[in-house]
Each structure stands twice: as C-alpha cells, then as structure tokens.
C-alpha cells in the first residue's frame, strides 16, 4: 500500500530524528540563573521520558497485531508491559536509586563488590539489548515494507543505518525532554487517527467482530503473498487467484473449499466483499467466538494456560532488567522521586495501551486480510486508510506511520547507546575513547540486524517477550535478592545469572533459529520464563547458602544505604 503521504511522513521523521540527534544539545537551556540551572527533572517529566523510551515497536504495532490474530489472551501483553512497573515500584525503584548505580553492572558491583559478577551482568545487558533491538528493526522494516514495498532485509538495513548514523552523530546523549516529547508524539500519533476512526465506525453502525462467525471482508481486497503460505479456509470462499494454488497454476475466479490450501509465493488473491477470509496463521482462534474467549492459544503454542502464566512472569519481572529503562531512573534526584516517577509511568502506560487494544479489535473487522498473509503487525498502519476512504484516511495512516517510525528510531537509538556504552566500557575496557564507542555501536547494531533477518517470521510483540524472558530470568533475581536478601554472595549471584540468563537466552536462540510450532517443547522454548525464573532464583539462593562464607564485606552498609530514606541521616551531623 504505497501512498505518497506515508513516504513523506517517514522521510520527515527520519530527517527530524537525525537533526535532533546531531543538534539536540544546542537546544539545552543556557541561563545565568542558578535556580533554573540546578532544577532537577520533575518526576512527571521523567516518567514521560521513561515511557517514551519504553514504548517500542512491540507496543505500537505488535499489541494490536496480536489482538487481531489471537484475541483476548493477548491482552496479557499490554497488562504485563505495564504491570512490570508495579513490581519495579514496590521492590526496586527507590532502593536501586539510593544504591547510586547508573547501570545494572554498576548495581552488581556496588552490592557485591565483585568484578566477575559485573562482567557477567554486562554480557547479559548486551544480550537483552540485542534481543530488544531485533523487534525494533523488524517493526521498522515492516513499516517500510507496508509503505514502499521494500523487501524485509532492505527495510531493516535502512533502519539500522539510520540508527547508527544517529548514534554516531549524536554521540552518547540522551536528553530527557526529547524522550518525554517522544511519549506524547506516540500518544498523539495513535490517538488522533483513532478518534476519527471511532467516529466513522459509529456512523457506519458500529460493526464488531462478534457480528460475524468468521473474519469477513467488508469490501473487495487484493492481497499479494510474498512467501508461500498454507492457509485454512473456515468456510468455502469465492476468490480470484493469480498464481500457484495447491500446486496448480490458477488465473481467474476459483472456489476455495473449507479446509487447508497452499498458496505459492507471489500469488495474488482478490477477496470480494463479504468473503470469509482464509487464514494463514494456523491459529486456533479462527472462529470469532473463540477469538473472544480466553485461553484459546497464542502464537506458536497449544498450551495456552502455561503460555499465559509464563508470559505474565516474563513481563511482570522482566521490566526491571531492561538496560535502557533503568538508566533513566538515575535522573531522579532521590529514592522518593524515583517512586513518584514510577507511579506516573504506570498511569501514562495504562493510558497508552488502551489505544493499540482498540486498534486490534477494529482491525479484526476492517483488515481481516492480514490474517491471510500473517503480517498482522501492519494492522495499526493500515486501519485508518481502510476505514476512512479518501485523502483524510491516507493522511491519518501517514500520521500513524510517522509515529511508528519515530518509535522505532528513538527506542533503537536509546538501546544502541546503552548497549554500545556497556560494550565500550566493560568489553573493550576503554571508557573515554570515542573510537571504542563508535566501534561498539557498529557491533551493537550489526548483530541484532543479522538476528532480525533470521527471525523475520516472529511476531514483533513475541520477540520482545523473549527479551523480557531473559531479563526476568537473570536480572530480576539479582535485583530482588540483591535488595531484599542480605545473604546473597557473589558466587551465588554469578551462578544464578549464568544459569538463568544462559538457559533463557539459549531457549530464545533456539526459538529464533528453528521456529518450533507444536507440543510441550515449543511451549517451553517460546515461553521460557515459567521455568527459567524459578530456576534462576533457586540456583542463586542455593549457591549463596553453599558459599555463605563468601558474604561480601560491605553487605550491611550497602543494604542500609539502599533502604534508608535520604531524609534520615545515618550519621550525626555536627554542623547541621
């Protein structure tokens, strides 16, 4: 669906991002007033910045796509993405801020005074950062594909180059106000089109997915398949096919009987209005009534109960281990304001996630053809133009596209900066060298690009879920035990990180490379959190008990510092 408006929007966003990256610092406030200059960032601003950094391709495109395809079960994604901050608020935010750590490896060093644990944490930060970058690149390439028809590898490549240029030009800056602005850009880009779409939807009688038995086209739609796809037709459908169908060349109208068919690569399918859409996802939620019921199965699993609990565990506990989010907490002046910012983040995210959810539901009505190609992540991009015909719809679609692209570029840039910082500091061991940082950022973008090409079939939100699973099985035990359990030892933390993080990362790699589809193996591999997280906790606690003689010396002091509010002075102040 190539529209000039969308192309212009993407170009504008790219140029704007590069300009802000290169000249952002010049917008910094210059004043002669100390009161203005030394004013810290308020929790509300900081919360916007955290949300702006956090809301990525998965939130912007992925959630709606998953809801379109798999229905009510997928609501756990937005719930989990938000609820992670609740756990962060209750157990981590304030003590982490008081510990004085800037990054997760810093925390490991401050709490356990151990350089090996610091190094292991650094490696995990890099792994999680890469896994999180993959879906950003995927989402961006999908957007480019939807707008210009570019092949997936080219889209990712263009985005990788733009991100790299941005990071190299802008160096290591990340400006709170720019990121805060990003949050509001993303909300606007989704909210404005949605309001217009909803008005239009109401005027046209408010059709809902429950209105028909199966997802049905409302107007004639032509679909082209980039890859050969096995589709399941729920009911017999009159379609026009140009290309290979079930191994035979077809060139004209044909009746697809209910059952499974195979459409070859490059085939074009014209779905007339009122056609029950053949679905290419192998989902168990083909029927609209099962789509509306929970525990019907998600992407690549036939153990929905297990998958749901595993997802909850991953997202609830994984948020605290995301490297680019945690560094933002350093901007808060103290533990109390860190807590207040987290509460504000909860409010902002809860508001935001209403939007992609509604998009997903409407997409089931208006863009069911995406179920045929399987590219459901494009739902948000296509919806406005599909609902509202004419230039207004095109314009709104362009707005959504621009917002999505801004989301990828900002999140990817932030992540790349975080990952290359760790690579330069802890792997290349060159803190101040600009050259080391540049090389590190090249590596930081190249590897996720290669993974994204290998994993192009994974839904975007699912790929992010994998990053969460690794974070939950490594940094969550480190942070929770490090903050709340005084008997954690360096050996315990190291083994827990290696076992939990390592196994989760292994499961994720296997998922990406082999695409397991059915049975318990697939469930355990695609949703590793449910077994990895308890395992990591157990290993960390057991090893700490086994090595209890190695209790780090400053443990008491570190814990007292983390848990004492700043307003309490630990030492008497003779001059106060």
């Amino acid at each position, binding site marked *: 669906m190539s529209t000039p408006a969308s192309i212009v929007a993407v170009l504008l966003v790219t140029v704007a991002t590069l300009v802000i990256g290169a000249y952002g610092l010049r917008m910094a406030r210059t004043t002669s007033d100390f009161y203005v*200059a030394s004013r810290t*960032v308020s929790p509300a601003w900081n919360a916007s910045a955290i949300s702006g950094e956090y809301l990525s391709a998965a939130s912007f495109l992925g959630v709606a796509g998953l809801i379109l395809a798999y229905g009510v079960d997928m609501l756990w994604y937005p719930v989990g993405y938000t609820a992670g901050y609740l756990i962060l608020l209750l157990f981590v935010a304030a003590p982490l801020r008081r510990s004085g750590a800037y990054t997760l490896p*810093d925390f490991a060093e401050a709490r356990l005074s151990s350089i090996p644990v610091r190094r292991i944490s650094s490696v995990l930060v890099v792994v999680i950062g890469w896994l999180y970058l993959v879906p950003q690149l995927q989402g961006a390439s999908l957007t480019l594909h939807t707008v210009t028809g570019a092949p997936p590898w080219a889209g990712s490549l263009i985005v990788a180059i733009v991100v790299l240029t941005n990071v190299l030009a802008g160096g290591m800056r990340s*400006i709170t106000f720019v990121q805060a602005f990003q949050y509001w850009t993303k909300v606007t880009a989704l909210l404005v089109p949605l309001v217009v779409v909803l008005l239009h939807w109401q005027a046209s009688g408010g059709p809902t997915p429950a209105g028909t038995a199966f997802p049905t086209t409302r107007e004639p739609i032509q679909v082209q398949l980039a890859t050969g796809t096995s589709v399941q037709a729920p009911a017999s459908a009159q379609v026009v096919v140009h290309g290979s169908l079930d191994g035979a060349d077809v060139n004209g109208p044909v009746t697809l009987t209910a059952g499974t068919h195979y459409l070859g690569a490059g085939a074009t399918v014209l779905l007339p209005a009122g056609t029950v859409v053949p679905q290419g996802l192998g989902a168990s939620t083909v029927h609209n009534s099962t789509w509306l019921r929970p525990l019907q199965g998600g992407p690549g699993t036939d153990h929905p109960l297990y998958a749901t609990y595993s997802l909850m565990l991953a997202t609830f506990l994984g948020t605290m281990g995301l490297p680019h989010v945690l560094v933002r907490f350093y901007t808060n002046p103290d533990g109390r304001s860190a807590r207040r910012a987290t509460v504000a983040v909860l409010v902002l995210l809860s508001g935001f996630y209403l939007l992609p959810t509604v998009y997903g539901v409407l997409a089931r009505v208006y863009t069911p053809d995406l179920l045929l190609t399987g590219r459901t992540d494009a739902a948000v991009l296509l919806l406005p133009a599909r609902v509202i015909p004419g230039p207004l719809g095109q314009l709104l679609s362009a707005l959504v596209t621009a917002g999505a692209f801004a989301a990828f570029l900002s999140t990817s840039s932030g992540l790349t900066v975080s990952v290359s910082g760790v690579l330069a500091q802890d792997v290349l061991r060159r803190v101040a060298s600009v050259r080391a940082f540049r090389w590190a950022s090249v590596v930081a973008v190249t590897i996720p690009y290669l993974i994204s090409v290998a994993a192009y079939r994974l839904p975007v939100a699912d790929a992010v879920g994998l990053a969460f699973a690794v974070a939950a099985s490594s940094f969550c035990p480190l942070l929770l035990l490090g903050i709340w359990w005084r008997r954690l030892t360096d050996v315990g933390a190291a083994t827990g990180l290696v076992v939990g993080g390592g196994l989760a990362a292994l499961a994720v790699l296997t998922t990406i490379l082999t695409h397991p589809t059915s049975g318990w193996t697939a469930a355990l591999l695609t949703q590793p959190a449910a077994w990895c997280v308890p395992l990591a906790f157990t290993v960390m606690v057991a090893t700490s008990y086994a090595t209890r003689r190695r209790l780090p010396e400053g443990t008491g002091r570190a814990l007292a510092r983390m848990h004492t509010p700043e307003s309490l002075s630990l030492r008497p*102040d003779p001059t106060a």
Partner: protein
Amino acid sequence: MPDSATTLAIAGLVAFGGAALAYRVLAHRRGLGSAADRATFATLHTASLAAPPLRAGLTKTGATKAARHLRALLGASALAITDGQQLLVWEGTGDSHAAEAVEHARRVMESGRTEVLGATTLGCRQLDCPVRTAVIAPISAGGHVIGTLAAYSGAASAGLVRATQEVAGWVSGQVELAELGASRTRLMEAELRALRAQISPHFIYNSLTAIASFVRTDPERARELLLEFADFTRYSFRRHGDFTTLAEELRSIERYLLLERARFGDRLVVSLQIAPEVLPVALPFLCLQPIVENAVRHGLESRPGRGSIAIVAENVGTEAHISIEDDGVGIEPEQVRRALSGEGGGSSMGLANVDARLRQVYGDEYGLVIETAVGAGTKVSVRLPKFHPGVRAS
C-alpha cells in the same frame, strides 16, 4: 561472517602455539634441571599460590585459602592457623581436635617460641587418629606475636619442626606486607583528608571586606551577604562525608559567586548550561568551586572591564563532562604544568589540589584538563563517572 572467520583464525593460531609449546616442553624436559631443582620449583610454586590470600592480613578467608597450600608444603596430616583468640582454619584430618587448637596455641602466643606437643597433651582416645603430635610456631608482625601456625602429624620429626618454623616465618613476612598495604591505604586516606575542603583565605578576607563596605550604605544587603557567607562556610567546613552531588556543589558555587558579585558588581557575567540528567552525579566535595574561583581570579581580578564565566555540564553516556571557561588573561601553560605536578605554588594551587583529589578518587585518567594560553582565557574540563565504587553523595 567476518567475526567467526577471525575467531577461527585466532583459535587456529592458539592451537598451533599450544602444540609448539608442548613440543618444546617435552623435547627439552631435561632443560628444567635436576630432580632437586624441580622440587625447588614445585615448592616455590606452592608458596606463590599461598601468598596472595595472605596479603589481606591474617583473616579467616585468607587463611582458609592459603592453608591448603601450606599443608602441602609441610606434608602434615592437619594444619591449623589461629590468631590467638580463635581458630581461623583447620585444614586436613582429625577435625575432632579443631576445638582445642586455640588452647594448644596459648603457650606459644605467650612465649613467642615454637612448641612441640606430644600425644599426652593432645590426649586422643582414638587409636588410629592421624593427629598425635603438634608443632606450633608463632606468626609475628611488627615484633608482636599475632597468631600461630600448627602442623599436626603422627610423629614430630626435627625436619617438621624446622619446616614449620620456616613456613610460619614466611607467613609472618606475608602478613607484614599486608600491614604495609593497610598503612599505605591509611596514608592515602590521610592525604585525601588533608587535601579536602580548602577554601582560600583570600576569599574569606575579600568577602568580609566587601560585606563591611555595605554595612552602612545597605545594611539589609550586608545582612543577606553575611547569611550567604555563613551558609557557604557551613558547607565548606562540614565534617561528614567526602562526597556531594553536582546539584549541591552548584548551590555552593552560586553562594560563592553571590559573594564575589558583592565585590565586582556587574563586571562578572556567568552563563550556565547544565544537563539536568547529571545533577544527581556524586563528586568529591568542593572540587568545582576552586576551579570557578580560579576562573574569577584570572577572568576578572587582573584586568579591567567585564569578564564572563561559562559553566557547562553535559550528559555523556556513563559520564558527566563539566567545563568551566573564562575569557580572562589566561595562564602561562608551563606554569600550570608546574603547579599540577606539585612543584612551585603560585596562583594555580587550588587547581593542583582538585587535580590531586580527582586522581586519588577516580584514578589517573580522570585528572583535570586545562586549556590555556596567555591572553586567551582558560578552560578547565573535568570528567566524572556517574558511578564509581565507593563514591556516593552523603
């Protein structure tokens, strides 16, 4: 992928190098010397393994790690190290005697001489107990007995007594090295304390004179300035904590500049560009104010007309970069170099002090960077890591 090709190439090189080394070692085995030589090497190697844990002093962890190697050196059934008050480690068999180790060591602690305890003293009821005699030697440091090393075995030979004495002497040497290290740390801390918080006497004198000039003409202003002065000195003279936050330090600089403005009036122009992200960064306290003071002195005092000072704090990844720039008369670079290397005092003593403290706290790569020339102004840059172990604002 070029990465994997490089990895393969490196792996190949390492394998080749390893094979070549193994060949050399096998082919020239006799090059390692006679049997006696090899025994010496083995002993020296064991001793070198036991040394690092003892460098932290006579502690439970250190003793536990070293004991295994020391027992291997002595060839005793068991080895115990005490610090006179309690057992630090019991390494080897015969654990039932571990509880009595301190009691065994008591006489050695008092006399400072090596003792040999026989089976009657040890009084073991088990007939097959490998621990029948003990050789206990003192560990001393700085002329005091600070612990004991006991070798337990079936029979005490003269050789074992001699070896135990030698090993105890060697342990004493290592522990003394530890004490040396500890006193070096104390010296560094004392140095840091001596360096901290020097507000210049000039400034106190000048401020009080400036305030005095307002007492008659503008008593209200004089009162405000005195209060600012009081606040400034309270911050500068505070006792607790070596570190503060950038926000606090900026507040102190503000008070300092208010007092200087009382002298210079409108001649002093200050511009600030502070990234709010770096305000919570912890830094050694009073490490920016002397730089600003230096800028005021070079930017204003020695010449007529206006002088401007720019303070910039940037957020750069894991560090904060701070620069303080004036457009004043500048300094002779050679003079700055001398001041920073601790030779000759002069006007840049404050800078030398800050430089020394930053290096002391963060390491040598975090010293001051000063760009200056006569007539071209001065720019002083500081890099502060956002996190450094042990550096926390209090």
